[in-house]
């Protein structure tokens, strides 16, 4: 299972802070949490909708039932904008701001992963369909 950081049990963690330096600190904590969770569960997409509607892949992070808190959609939206500004995600599809693709690995790192996989399976210089690459 995923080990949640202790800050996740603090009710104020789920409120956007008015003090800018406090908010900067908490934003960092949220971003780290989101990317670590994405990596752990191999999630690539984060949507504002995930904070609006329960039952999605992100509930474990965006909500804490035990303390009856959840991150509000507006806060999640700001966090996403922050991550985009830091080049940790991109809005995908472009020209909207409700969904992002998370770079918990940078594209360059993904390129490396693909290359290593291709080499290991002796398939360099062959043509593969997208379906052959993705796990079944």
């Amino acid at each position, binding site marked *: 299972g995923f080990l949640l*950081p*202790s800050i996740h049990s*603090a*009710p*104020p*963690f*789920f*409120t956007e*802070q*008015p*003090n800018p*330096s*406090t908010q*900067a*600190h*908490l934003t960092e904590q949220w971003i780290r949490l989101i990317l670590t969770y994405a990596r752990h569960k191999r999630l690539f997409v984060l949507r504002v909708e995930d904070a609006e509607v329960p039952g999605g892949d992100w509930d474990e992070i965006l909500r804490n039932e035990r303390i*009856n*808190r*959840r991150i509000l959609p507006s806060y999640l939206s700001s966090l996403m904008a922050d991550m985009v500004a830091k080049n940790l995600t991109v809005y995908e599809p472009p020209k909207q701001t409700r969904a992002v693709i998370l770079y918990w690995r940078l594209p360059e790192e993904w390129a490396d992963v693909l290359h290593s996989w291709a080499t290991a399976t002796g398939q360099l210089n062959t043509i593969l369909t997208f379906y052959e690459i993705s796990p079944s």
Partner: protein
Amino acid sequence: MHRGVGLAAFDRQVSQRFAELSSEVSKTQVDHLQSQLTQFQTALFHFATTHRDSIRSDPAFRHAFQKMCLSIGVDPLAGPRKGGWLAEMLGMGDWQYELGVQIVDVCVSTRERNGGVIEMGELVRMVSNLRGVKSGITEEDVIRSIKTLQPLGAGYEVLDVGGGKKMVRSVVKELDADQAVVLAEAQVEGGWIVEAILENRRGWTRDRARAALENMLLRDGLCWLDSQDERYGKVYWVPSAMRWDE
């Protein structure tokens, strides 16, 4: 008139002789005292160096040694060199400095979270973690070390907020009396505080409570806001009064 003869001369001679005698007596006493002090100093230093390792590693022994020094009027922190003669004698200089650096380290790294005020227990815990399992650092060691940090001018100070709790401030801005009260009340609840508590338990007006809390939140970054509380709506959390498990 002849000088130096007769009763007047006799008086003068006597007073002169007495004066000489009294200064001789004082000199003897002073010499005696001096040699006693030197003996004592040597004995104390000898004791300190003999037990240097125990003083360094055993907090209970260190505490007893401190008490002994203070009860005989010797301040181990005094002396022209930094850290006092205790540091010089025992080579504790390094040890003191290392502890000081670690304290600063913890305070600086938690400053964004708690606005520059950290609870003593948390500070001791985090410094102990930095030092490893058998560190044996006590609150007393930390308090002593903070005293030597004062010349830094960065505002390092131990504050007593009542209820047996102490906080360490590491920013220049001083806590005003109202903030100290808010911290104390937050301690009672395990970190959270609302205007109502200050009004009911301390008899504050709503305006005073609001001003204190909002200043701590917006101006000083000493607390966090929780706007999802069902009962109160707006709750303030003081990170230095919360228990952190990292």
